[in-house]
C-alpha cells in the first residue's frame, strides 16, 4: 500500500496562558497507507484529536514533519491542496451545518471553490448517493435525525472529493440507529469507494472495523496492530484505561472461569460459535 499520510518525529506543544507547556503529541512516527482504515483509540486528552488535526494541516508541527500525499503541511503553498485531499468530520453534527436544505449544505464547499454549476450538481448528487441521503436532498437539515445529520456532514466532506476523511468520534453523540448508519457508511466508503479512513473512537466495537488500530497515551502511540492482535493485549489495554470490545470482554471473563474460549474473539457470532462447540463437547456421548 502506497503511503498517504506520513509523520516523522512529530511533536505538538500547546502553550498555556500561565506559560506552562503541554506536549499533546510526542515523537510520533506514523505511516497511513492509501485506502487504509485506521482506528485511533486512547483515553481523553491522550492526543488523538491533536494528532488527527495534523493530517489536514489544521495544526502545524511544533517540530518534526507531516506529509500528506507527498506534500509537507509546513509549506503554506500546500495548504489548500492538503485540505482538499483530507476532509474532517467532527463529533457534533449540529456545529457543521451551514445551509437550509440538505443539498445546499453539501454544495457549500464546491460553491466556495467557484466550480462550474454542472460540476457542483454532479458532486452533490454523488456525495448524497454515497451516504444514502438522496431522498432527503430538499429536506431542511433540522428535520433530519442525529445520524442523518452526521451523514450530511460526511456528504459535505465528500463533495470536496477527498482521498481521506478523518472522523473524530463521529458517533459519540448519536443514538444506536444513528451509530449503525454512520458506521455502515464509513465501512462502505472505505471498502467500496477506496477512501482512506482515520476513525477516532471510544467505542471499541467500532475500532474492530478498522484494518489497523493505533492506541495513544499521553501523546505517544503506545500500541498498534490489527484488531485481534491489539485486543489480545488485555493487560496492556487495562493499564491504558481502555476496555475490550463487549464480546472479547465476556470471553476474557469466561476464560477466568475456566471455559477454554480462545483470545482474539471479537464478535457475537464468533463467541456463540465457540460456546456451541463447548456445549457440544459437553453433551455429545463419546
Amino acid at each position, binding site marked *: 500500500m502506497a503511503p498517504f499520510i506520513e509523520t516523522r518525529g512529530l511533536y505538538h506543544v*500547546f502553550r498555556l*496562558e500561565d506559560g506552562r507547556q503541554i506536549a499533546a503529541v510526542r515523537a510520533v512516527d506514523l505511516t497511513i497507507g492509501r485506502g487504509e482504515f485506521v482506528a485511533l483509540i486512547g483515553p*481523553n486528552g491522550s492526543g488523538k484529536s491533536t494528532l488527527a488535526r495534523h493530517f489536514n494541516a489544521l495544526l502545524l508541527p511544533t517540530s518534526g514533519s507531516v506529509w500528506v500525499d507527498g506534500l509537507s503541511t509546513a509549506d503554506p503553498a500546500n495548504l489548500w491542496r492538503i485540505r482538499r485531499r483530507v476532509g474532517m468530520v467532527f463529533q457534533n453534527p449540529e456545529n457543521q451545518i451551514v445551509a437550509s436544505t440538505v443539498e445546499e449544505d453539501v454544495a457549500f464547499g464546491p460553491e466556495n471553490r467557484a466550480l462550474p454549476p454542472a460540476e457542483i450538481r454532479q458532486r452533490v448528487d454523488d456525495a448524497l448517493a454515497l451516504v444514502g441521503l438522496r431522498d432527503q436532498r430538499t429536506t431542511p437539515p433540522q428535520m433530519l435525525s442525529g445520524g442523518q445529520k452526521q451523514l450530511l456532514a460526511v456528504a459535505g466532506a465528500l463533495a470536496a472529493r477527498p482521498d481521506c476523511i478523518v472522523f473524530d468520534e463521529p458517533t459519540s*453523540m448519536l443514538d444506536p440507529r444513528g451509530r449503525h448508519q454512520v458506521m455502515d457508511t464509513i465501512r462502505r466508503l472505505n471498502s467500496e469507494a477506496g477512501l482512506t479512513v482515520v476513525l477516532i473512537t471510544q467505542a*471499541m466495537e467500532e475500532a474492530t472495523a478498522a484494518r489497523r488500530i493505533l492506541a495513544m497515551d499521553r501523546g505517544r502511540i503506545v500500541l498498534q496492530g490489527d484488531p485481534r492482535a491489539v485486543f489480545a493485549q488485555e493487560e496492556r489495554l487495562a493499564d491504558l484505561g481502555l*476496555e475490550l470490545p463487549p464480546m472479547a470482554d465476556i470471553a476474557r471473563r*469466561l476464560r477466568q472461569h475456566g471455559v477454554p474460549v480462545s483470545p482474539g474473539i471479537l464478535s457475537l457470532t464468533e463467541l*456463540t460459535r465457540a460456546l456451541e462447540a463447548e456445549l457440544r463437547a459437553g*453433551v455429545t456421548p463419546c
Partner: protein
Amino acid sequence: MESLSHIFAAGTPLRREALRDVNFRVETGERVGIAGHTGSGKSTLVQLLAGLLKPTAGQVLLDGVPAHGHNTTARDRRRRMGMGFQYPEDQIFEGTVFREVAFGPRNAGLKGKELQARVTWALGMVGLDADTVMERVPYTLSGGETRRVALASTIALQPEVLILDEPTAGLDPRGRDELLTQIGDWHTRTDLTLIVVSHDLTVLARTVDRVIVLRGGRVSASGPVRHVLSGTATLRESGLDPLPSVLLLEQVRAGGASVRIDRFLPEEAAAEIARALEAGTRSHVTRRESA
C-alpha cells in the same frame, strides 16, 4: 408526574406531539433510567422535569409543587434539582476550570476553604485531578476533559435530585466507569435521587434500579432494570441496541443451555454461562454413568 403530554408548536404546521400520556413517580432516593432513541421524547421529558418547559396537559410535581411554577416554592424545588445537559461543553462560560465549577456553589453562598473543598470534591467525582486542572482555561482542555468539567459544575451544587442526560457521551472507558461508580457511591451515602437519561443501555445497567423506555412519546416498557433490559424485542422496536451480554445469553439458551437472560453485567453473564456449561458437562457425565 401525572398524565403528562407535551405538544410543540401547537396550532402551527410544525405541531409535533413530543409526549403523550406519560405517568410515573420517582421516590426520594430512587435511581431511575429513561431510555429511548432520538425523537422518543426523552429530552422533552427531562426539560419538563426540570421545569424548563410547561406541559401542554398534565403536570410535573416536584415534592407536590408544579415544576414550572413562578412562585418561590417552585423555585426552591427546582434549586434542589441538578441538571447535566447533553452537550455540557456548551454551558461552559468561565475563564478557568476553578471559576467554572465554583460558579454554582459560590452563588449558593459558599466561600473560602469550603468553596475550594467543594470544587476539589466535584472535580474528583469526574476523575479530574484538581491541582492539575484548576487553573486551566477551559478551551485548552480536550473534548472529554471539557465534558468532565461541565459535569463537575452540576455535581458541585450537590443537588438532591440529579438528572443526567447522556452523562458518558465522549468519555473514555475508564472515565465512564469511574463516573458511574462515583455517582453510585454518592447515592449509597446520601438519599440522592438519580435520573439517568440515555440510549446506551450499558450505562443504565450499571446505574439504575428501574427503567422507563420511551417510544414515539409514549412509554413502551417500564419496570425493574433486569426485566426491562432482558426484553430484547421491545428494546429493538424502540430503536435501542440490546446489551451484548443479553444477546449472547439468548444465543446460548437457543443452543440448548439453561441460562438466565437477565444476568446482564459482563461478569454475571460470564459466570452464568460457565455455570451452565459446567452443569451440562455434569449431566452428561451422570447420563454416561447411569447408561
